């Protein structure tokens, strides 16, 4: 059976620190103003992080790192007129920058807004004449092409894990082959309930989330001997 690479994100562990997002930019030399991976949260306000009142009447804030979902049933692949975006056998939705014409139909098609476009030549700090920051294996992208998370294909092809996975300080991200029942990610997914985003659209994402631990609303132990959530 072929591989199906997938990512599992534990939203209980995730503290929304943006380390994965910044490391992705570094390792993949993503230009200023673009993010392949960004942290959304369910708060309000200009940064989306001002706590709002949750369903239990108390403030809450949940963080959701969001990236390309590497959908099995990818709308972007269907929309691309040149075939520049395509599915690899291992499940990665990949990008061929040399035949991308920058029409951005894929961006319109993607319901996750996972893709970014190089309106100009990508600017980076630091920028070197004959090199770029990050993994040397990652190609630079020219002006006029769309780019997005690649599950760090240069790393995964060499048997390494994506940068976001190895950089998460909370160890909230797990990556691997979900067609392999003995993989770590398969084991974790069988132990917990998880969901993907916009499941009812039928995109069949390869990124899964375990939701934050539910807080008990009612204490089962009313005799005052202890204190059990609320």
């Amino acid at each position, binding site marked *: 059976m072929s591989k199906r690479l997938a990512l599992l994100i534990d939203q209980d562990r995730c*503290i929304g620190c943006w380390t994965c997002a*910044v490391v992705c930019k570094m390792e993949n030399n993503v230009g*200023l*103003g673009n993010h392949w991976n960004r942290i959304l949260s369910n708060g309000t306000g200009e940064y989306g992080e001002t706590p*709002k009142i949750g369903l239990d009447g108390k403030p809450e804030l949940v963080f959701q790192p969001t990236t390309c979902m590497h959908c099995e049933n990818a709308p972007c692949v269907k929309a691309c007129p040149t075939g520049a975006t395509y599915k690899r056998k291992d499940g990665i939705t990949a990008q061929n920058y040399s035949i991308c014409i920058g029409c951005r139909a894929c961006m319109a098609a993607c319901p996750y807004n996972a893709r970014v476009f190089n309106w100009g030549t990508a*600017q980076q700090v630091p920028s070197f*004449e004959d090199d*770029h920051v990050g993994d*040397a294996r990652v190609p630079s992208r020219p002006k006029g092409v769309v780019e997005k998370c690649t599950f760090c*294909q240069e790393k995964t092809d060499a048997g390494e894990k994506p940068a976001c996975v190895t950089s998460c300080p909370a160890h909230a991200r797990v990556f691997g082959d979900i067609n392999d029942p003995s993989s770590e990610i398969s084991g974790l997914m069988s132990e917990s309930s998880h969901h993907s985003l916009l499941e009812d659209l039928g995109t069949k994402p390869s990124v899964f989330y375990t939701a934050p631990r539910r807080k008990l609303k009612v204490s089962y132990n009313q005799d005052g001997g202890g204190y059990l959530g609320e």
Partner: protein
Amino acid sequence: MELSTRKALFLCKKLHRIVSVDVELIMKKTLKDLKNIWRWDLQMEISRRRFLGGSLALGGAVAIGTTGPTLKGLGFIEGANAAPANEQEKITYNCCNPECNNCSLQVHTRNGKLVRISPNPNYYTRPCLRGRSRLQWNYHPDRLKYPFKRVGERGEGKWERISWEEALDTIATNLAKIRDEHGPEKVFFTAGAVMSVMPNSMQRLFANAFTKGETTNTVGSLCCASQAEASNASQGYRTAGIEEKAHSKLIIVWGHNPAVTYIPHWGIVAEAKERGAKLITIDPRFNETAAKSDKWMSIKPGTDTAMAMAMIRYIIEEDLYDEKFALERSNLPFLVNEATGKLVRHSEIVADGNPDAFVVWDKAVNGPAHAEEAISPVLEGSFTANGMSVRTVFARLRERVSEFTSEYASEITGVPAKEITDLARLYANTKPAMLDSGMSGAQRTNNGVNFIQSLLNLAALTGNIGVLGGGVNDTGGFAHGTNAGVPMPYEAKVKGQIPTTKLGEYFLEGKPYPLKAVYWQGKGLGQVPNANKVLEGMKKMDFVVVQEHFFGDAASVADIVLPVATLFERYDVMCASRSFYYHLMDKAVEPFMEAKSDTWIYAELAKRLGFGEVFDKTEEEFIDGILKPTGLTSASLRESGPVWIWSDPKYNKYGVKRDKKPFHFFQDTPFNTPSGRFEFHTVRWENRGFEPMVHFDAPVESKETEPELYAKYPLSLVATKIRTKVHSTYAVMPWLSEIYPKGWVTINEEDAKARGIKDGQQVEVFNDRGSVKVSAHVTAGIRESVVSMPNGWWVQQGACSSVLSNDYTFEQSWGHCLNNTLVQVKGV
């Protein structure tokens, strides 16, 4: 040139909202604004286009047409056809050194350029987004490349590039002149919160040699003076339980925000939670840690001690305390002379008794006895001993806290009484339970010392000290537990001292005497409370040198600005500062443009001032000297990687050798107090003339203590930390500024409504000390009558909360009291 402009809309059905991320003008605005503010007038204008085009030599080692394998980074290629990363890269190890977690960094260079920072695979933390942004720091377009001299008025922003020769000659001449005419102590040396040894030690070494020990020192600190004072008094030193959290069953985070300030250690907290640990956060604001907690308890700023004392009272009244610990390891059974309020000494009850030993009441002889020799000490009681009316510390503590019923504490703190009681019961019944203070914002108040004392008391009372996963977590690391350091040639003869929070006032008012020169290294001026006053004070000086990486706040008022090397460009050593490890911080690349290491700068100045021999060592030789008591060397550390301080008796002050797990403070190490025990009635404060036991003082600058001021400024301002900075460090890194481009004030929904303020609206936050304009974040996730501002923006960046902060301090610790600040907010 145009940056990509984007407005991205993210529809996420699961989260039931659309999030709009406006990423467009962020970078353009931030960097351009910084340039405008600094208005430097350079002989060589460096435009971003040219810099980013790479036509300037970078790092001194870039060659056009490099030798070595062609890097396939520039073409667009399919597939992974390039050579694997490690063939092209040289790896060195370093340690991120601001006042944070001090993670080990794996540094990758290609052809003399820093290109990646990744986790050290042999270390237990993964560096966070800030440490990664050091790549941008090293090659930042606004990084200082040359020495500069001020032309025009101080603060005007006009600069002329000068040579190092001229800079060093000017500095040496001016410092010598001031020393000879006015005295060595009139030159004030100060440095920032750098946790590695070299930069600040080199300044101290230079200052010591230059002044022959007659310096003006600072007392207190911006971070943790109160925490330190209370810890030192109660248990003998500060402790750090960050790594232990995984073993805690209950973690009470009090005025602290580890989800932001201890990001690399969050995996440990997550592990604790997965093992069933409860996490409770006490804070005026629903902070990022509260978002991960089982419960958030909202409390009025400056009142935390009252709640802790109510918990102490409950634990005593309900007999939930650990009697064994109390009798054997604390000074609760010690007798206090009721007339004097002082601990009874052994010499007072026995003729040739030991004046440094203490006394308990021994049931076995029905009389007073030497505390360490008594057979059956009594915990509670009143007695007469040698004509003195005496009572045990425990009895006096019971009386001290008796007023603090949960109801009374609730009136003071705003926390519901039942919640206080519930928390006390939970804490007392859970072991191990940790009080996570982490240099709490609650100890940055006038009652900060006693707040930390109250936490320590709670831990000791419940026997949570000396237990893995218990205790009071202060901060990572144990630098004070090592014998590493740079020996000084002259004995210290401090002529005068300035409280760290009072720089502005003392500079302006010529206290303790009028200073003439300031040598300012790396410190964020915008972090000092009442920051505008500090800027004014600096302008009064005859001569100001700033040694820095950017034209920061302090540099803006300098006479000479020196570009200094980053930690990748020199050698340094980390000695267990925020972790329990020694790290060699290895040089990876040559300094950028004309930047020089602090060591080199001080060595050159020393030569000109006639004591060059003090600096007659390479950096690596200095490091070998620093490590000498441990037997480690820079070479051995390079070979071995970070070394755990408990792995060999020579590596730590207590001669402890321990296998990796578990290490316990106060099992493997002693209480370092005069009594050798945990002290509820501290000898240290008794000797210094301060109240020895826990007590609550109402917050200064509050409704209770300054009602007239409160009438004008009815909102309490608390400062918060932010993911993208450590204090003011990293404030200009593009990857970080993209996330939070500008500052804000968080304000309660009711307070906002009362002022007609809507979310996202520009508002002015002001008081008599200053004013800032920021956008408002309106939420129910902060107490009414409290506003919070993230701390760390530089004064020039416009969202600097310190211009509003109270610079009050007090003799017991000279602690920072910025969380005793009142402000008003209005829409603009």
